[in-house]
């Protein structure tokens, strides 16, 4: 009974999310990969909001089969104790948003997560992005994926789903991800810290008291210095992707 209810909810949410997307037509940026999705999403959203562009992204970890359509619709589960009441209310709201929501959101920045083979196919049946950012491939669900190459295979579906006018933004430091270039019909832009061939390359990274300073080398060989108030190389990567979005997408 629970399984049937879950399937029904999943199906309904998918329909409502698709209806919303086809009516509102936001530019969809998907961030996928097994790590660092959150900070890249946040950096992109921050940039879009700074430019006063209407943008929103996933709340919490709503990034898979149920969470992704909820994020597209801008919903999250409420506090109702009864699961039945909770989902009836959510489906009611989802329907209202799908049919009546005003065309406000210009950019949807969505984390997309997979935890078993064929998840990607299902997620792509809900939303086809125009931009894909791939972060890294690490073995996060060993019970479902026997190798990293199988995870890469799932992500290749995402890259090959991009339209010719789309863009694949790939982490050049991850060897499996850079191989996915071959799956892309769209333009590919790479970023990285270690791979000198990256289009957007971060170098001369210095940790300072309140963050990190580094230089970005762009495809035009322009070098500029940036400072971020965050620690860790993953924030440098987020910053590189942010620059790509600012310069090549918006």
């Amino acid at each position, binding site marked *: 009974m629970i399984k049937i209810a879950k399937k029904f909810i999943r199906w309904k949410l998918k329909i409502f999310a698709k209806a919303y997307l086809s009516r509102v037509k936001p530019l969809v940026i998907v961030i996928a990969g097994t*790590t*660092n999705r*959150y900070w890249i999403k946040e950096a992109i959203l921050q940039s879009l909001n700074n430019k006063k562009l209407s943008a929103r992204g996933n709340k*919490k*970890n709503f990034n898979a089969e149920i969470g992704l359509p909820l994020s597209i619709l801008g919903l999250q589960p409420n*506090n109702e104790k009864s699961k039945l009441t909770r989902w009836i209310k959510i489906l009611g709201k989802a329907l209202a948003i799908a049919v009546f929501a005003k065309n406000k959101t210009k950019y949807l920045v969505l984390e997309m997560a997979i935890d078993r083979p064929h998840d990607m196919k299902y997620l792509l049946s809900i939303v086809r992005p125009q931009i894909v950012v791939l972060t890294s491939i*690490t073995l*996060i*669900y*060993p*019970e479902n994926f026997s190798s990293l190459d199988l995870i890469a295979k799932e992500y290749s579906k995402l890259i090959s789903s991009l339209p010719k006018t789309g863009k694949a933004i790939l982490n050049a430091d991850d060897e499996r991800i850079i191989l996915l270039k071959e799956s892309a019909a769209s333009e590919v832009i790479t970023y990285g810290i270690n791979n000198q061939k990256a289009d957007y390359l971060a170098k001369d990274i210095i940790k300072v*008291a*309140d*963050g990190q300073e580094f230089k970005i080398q762009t495809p035009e060989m322009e070098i500029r210095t940036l400072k971020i*108030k*965050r*620690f*860790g*190389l*993953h*924030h440098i990567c987020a910053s590189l992707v942010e620059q790509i979005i600012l310069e090549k997408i918006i």
Partner: protein
Amino acid sequence: MDARANGRRRAWQRVKSMFQRTQNINLSPIKTIELLASKIPDVISLAQGIPSFDTPEIVKRAAIKALNRGVVAKYSLAYGLYELREAIEQKLAEDGMYYDFEKEIIAIAGSIEGITASLISIIEPEKNEVIIFSPDYTSYSEAIKVAGGKPVFVNLTEPAYSQRDDWKIDFNDLKAKINSRTAAIMFSNPNNPTGAIFTKDDLLKIAELAAGANALLISDEVYKDFLYAEIGKEKMFSLAQIPELRKKVIRIFSFSKAYSMAGWRIGFLHSDEENINEILKVHDSLVTCAPVIAQHAAMAALDFGGEEIIKFVNEFKNRREIMLNYLSELSDFFECQSPLGSYYVFPKIKFKPKHKIVLDVLTQRQIDSPSWQVALDLLYGAKVAVVPGQAFGPAGENHIRLSFGRSRKDIEQGMARIIKYLKQ
């Protein structure tokens, strides 16, 4: 026979000489009280420092899911699961603390493991003193001794109960005791057992004094979510929010209290990469990694446990009022202020117990302690377990600690028993 007895004595002396280091380390007095209480039928404990709630369902479900996925049988990295640390970094950023999840955060087996690992990594033969406040968490002094250090108490100043006041740091005492041998200043904030919250100014003053002695700061913030007064509407200030202090501050957090997960033994600590590199070595030697199933549960707690914390805080706020109402009926026996944080009341004792109780399990110091005698009097006379204030250092003497983390029923029945017993 004499030869055999002498032989046994010599063997015992040899064994004793093997445990020199642990001779001065004591079991927590809270455990002693709980052990004594466990032997009394129908006893009510207001001593236990754990919340009465069970772990939230969503957290339990996440642990069961991880168990069924077959991902909890192996070690994680010593740092902890990648995904958990990513979630921790996000949570810290919400509170204005920016730490790299890859190199600056460690998942720990409960706060005391993180504290002990930190102390072991920083205590040196020539820099072995650790300043702790009194009253403060009872296990600090023992953890310092385990790490080969020497606890140095700095008293908190008792509030004037007639005014709206709180326990405050005695900076003259702190200045007098900090020196080149001071390895660290360690404190809980909000304070256990007084519930006091140190102000930003006071915390910055501590940091300044520590910097002068090249000492680190260990900030134990396990009760940071339990704030009750106006101050609670804002988030609590932490020294870990100051970027310039990140090399000087080791901040500890545990899921035990905030998410009712005491038995899961899970928490985290964070600091600058340089400090973490050293603490990690000790953490790895002590526990290899935090329990992996608990790490999965902690991830769910961070993602979905926010609403549960709000429920807990609201309930504790009500329980605090209930306990304070009962205490107001005991104004001839105790005086106290309303705690701003944590879930303890720390009333001052104004009476002498009816009997002197001597037990084999107690040290002479405990037998002579007024707070122990009151705690034992209430335990055997009213059948209510409370913690003697002496357990929290010298300035805790003449107080008892009552927990309103216990259930309403326990609080109501326990306090009613105390009133009935004392007013007999």
